[in-house]
């Protein structure tokens, strides 16, 4: 007869076609976590507890302290947050080194990747942290953000493999990350500040939903149309009228042989391009739309990021972008309350005050429609 399993409940999660995290957990040989996780399943209640402030000397971020309330089963099992390489590209050589180091000092269990973007390594004891960090440092992998700081960023695959990309997502990611290492490693802000970079409005890193500042590639001129290729799509059976019907602003018209675009009406939603990538392409005058204020949950519920700058050229050395981020973060640092994300601070102060503080103009693209209430303010000097 087979040996009685020590994790009869979790074993159920090894069944079925999708690869099982329980199987992976078992493979690491990380018994403590396995036992604790089984216990949690049995009790239907977490046994994890606040881990306090742990970290690598010189940094106040990058490690999530985590202990259990059943030290008899498992004591400390902190998390290393490691900044991922741009767009999560890895040469196996590096990934192997990461595996080796993590096996040596940590649990051997990886979280590939965290929702913010980091390479997350779960389960390291306090005493192993510095040596582990030092080995990662040797191969060039630094810790990322946590607490009230600029967080680890993320960017989509962009120009590396996507024809839609209007900005160099990887280069921007690289540049911004390298610029804000101090702000990332030494939390001093009211709360977290997340930046995400998508190459086009398809928003492949969900920047609109999940970042305080979203940089989303777009174009200023008109979509490029190859009429011949449109006709090919049509003969191949694509319903072009249907594509036109789904344009949010009725900017497209198909007469059976030609696709007409009223470029003034296009709001750059990507739909028609997505449907006919061989025939339609973004324009050539490329840049980004900058959005502000996204976040999940929130004090007032979740916020989706909204338009701050409708169009900005984003080329090296990225001065305009970096200046703007600096002004935003400074204003928020000065005015934000504890645990208040930038979108909430803007909500509390009003978009008008915020725009003045960061030196941006009010433009209609920032809003769906103007205010319906008669409650606004005059600035000093505006009234007699």
């Amino acid at each position, binding site marked *: 007869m087979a040996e009685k399993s020590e994790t009869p409940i979790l074993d159920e999660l090894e069944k079925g076609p999708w690869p099982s995290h329980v199987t992976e957990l078992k493979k690491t040989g990380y018994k403590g976590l396995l036992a604790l996780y089984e216990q949690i399943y049995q009790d239907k209640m977490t046994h994890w507890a606040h881990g306090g402030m742990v970290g690598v000397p010189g940094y106040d971020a990058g490690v999530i302290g985590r202990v259990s309330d059943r030290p008899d089963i498992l004591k400390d099992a902190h998390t290393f947050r490691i900044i991922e390489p741009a767009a999560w590209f890895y040469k196996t050589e590096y990934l192997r080194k990461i595996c080796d180091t993590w096996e040596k000092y940590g649990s051997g269990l990886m979280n590939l990747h965290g929702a913010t973007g980091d390479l997350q390594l*779960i389960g390291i004891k306090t005493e192993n942290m510095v040596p582990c960090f030092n080995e990662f440092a040797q191969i060039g992998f630094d810790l990322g953000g946590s607490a009230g700081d600029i967080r680890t960023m993320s960017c989509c695959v962009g120009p590396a493999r996507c024809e839609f990309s209007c900005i160099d997502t990887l280069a921007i990611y690289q540049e911004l990350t390298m610029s804000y290492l101090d702000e990332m490693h030494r939390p001093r802000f009211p709360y977290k500040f997340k930046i995400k970079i998508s190459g086009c409005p398809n928003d492949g890193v969900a920047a609109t939903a999940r970042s305080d500042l979203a940089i989303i590639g777009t174009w200023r001129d008109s979509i490029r149309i190859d009429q011949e290729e449109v006709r090919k799509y049509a003969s191949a059976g694509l319903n072009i009228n249907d594509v036109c019907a789904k344009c949010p602003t009725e900017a497209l018209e198909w007469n059976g042989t030609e696709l007409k675009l009223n470029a003034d009406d296009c709001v750059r939603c990507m739909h028609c391009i997505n449907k006919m990538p061989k025939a339609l392409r973004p324009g050539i005058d490329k840049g980004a739309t900058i959005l502000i204020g996204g976040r999940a949950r929130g004090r007032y519920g979740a916020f989706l990021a909204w338009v701050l700058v409708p169009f900005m050229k984003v080329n090296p050395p990225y001065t305009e972008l970096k200046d703007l981020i600096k002004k935003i973060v400074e204003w928020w640092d000065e005015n934000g309350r504890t645990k208040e994300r930038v979108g909430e601070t803007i909500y509390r102060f009003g978009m008008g005050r915020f725009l003045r503080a960061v030196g941006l103009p009010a433009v209609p693209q920032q809003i769906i429609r103007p205010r319906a209430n008669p409650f606004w303010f005059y600035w000093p000097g505006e009234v007699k």
Partner: protein
Amino acid sequence: MSTQQPIKLDFGVVHYDLMLPPIIKRNYGKWKYHEIIKPGILKHVSETGEEFYTVRAGAPKFASVDTVRKLCDLADKYCDGYLRFTSRHNIEFLISKKENIDGLIADLKKMGLPVGGTGNSMASIIQCTAWMHCHTAATDAAGIGKSVYDGLFEYFQRMDLPAKLKIAISGCLNMCGAVHCSDIAILGVHRVPPKVIDEIVSKACEIPSLIAVCPTYAIKPNPKAKSITIDPDKCMYCGICYGMCPGVPLADPKNDGVSIWVGGKVSSTRSGPMFSRLVVPYLPNNPPRWPEVVDVVKKIVNVWVDGAKKDERMGEWIERIGWGRFFKITGIPFTDKHIDDYVFAIPSMSTGAQVRL
């Protein structure tokens, strides 16, 4: 050991130049178009004429170094040593030689890794750490994720859904799994106020910030105990206080569970981004396979597949037919919990006399 110091600091992120396959470097920014050859297999064609293939595979987000090494082996064998992960944590094998595709797929099959997740399929499920590693979790994420994946397995490998299907799971209201904008979202919920453990609060927590942080002003000082009290009539169990203070835990095996949300979307396409909306306020935690959750998710996917037009994401479809109809055809009961009563409640009310009866 603990006196050891880091050898260097603030060196930042490895440059991506070191990570990109040569063919990508050659064609960087020059991609012209793509095709999805079959589920999981992308072909990108460059202006230079070069062709490039991607094989996307699902994997457990929580992986052992063992498995990761095996993935590296495959990448070495078929991809000149390069791979990447997607923003939804799938693995992408980056292939410059077309003839390598079939071998790779065969090997992935052997390893038990499904190939798919492209086009109008179910994308991989975003999940947080939850019971695997988190102190605020009201439920698990990986366990539910595995169960839902198994239940919808075929949809990862097919591309005949009306549109993309993006599912996310978060163990608690912090929403690390970014459930707030997903086609289907599964969110762990607490349903009773935190218990106040005066000894811990008085020792470990900063009381004024604790009071300030509660969105509904449910926390009042309790100077006698150097602690706080929580007004059960005002607390809506969000757990924000517990995030700051270990003295107010709210895990409760009898009452914790799972809520289901639908209709969220992130991309700016067509309708633009949308929030996920509450459809099932509570299902009990029923580990290890959460059958109630899997059932509801399957039911929702089925009605969407039956009812939606081509290119209609879950939320776009529901907005077209109306939320009342959605509740009717799924048979999910509508309750006062569905009606927003929070800060932005008023703009969600149905103004005017348009009614679907």
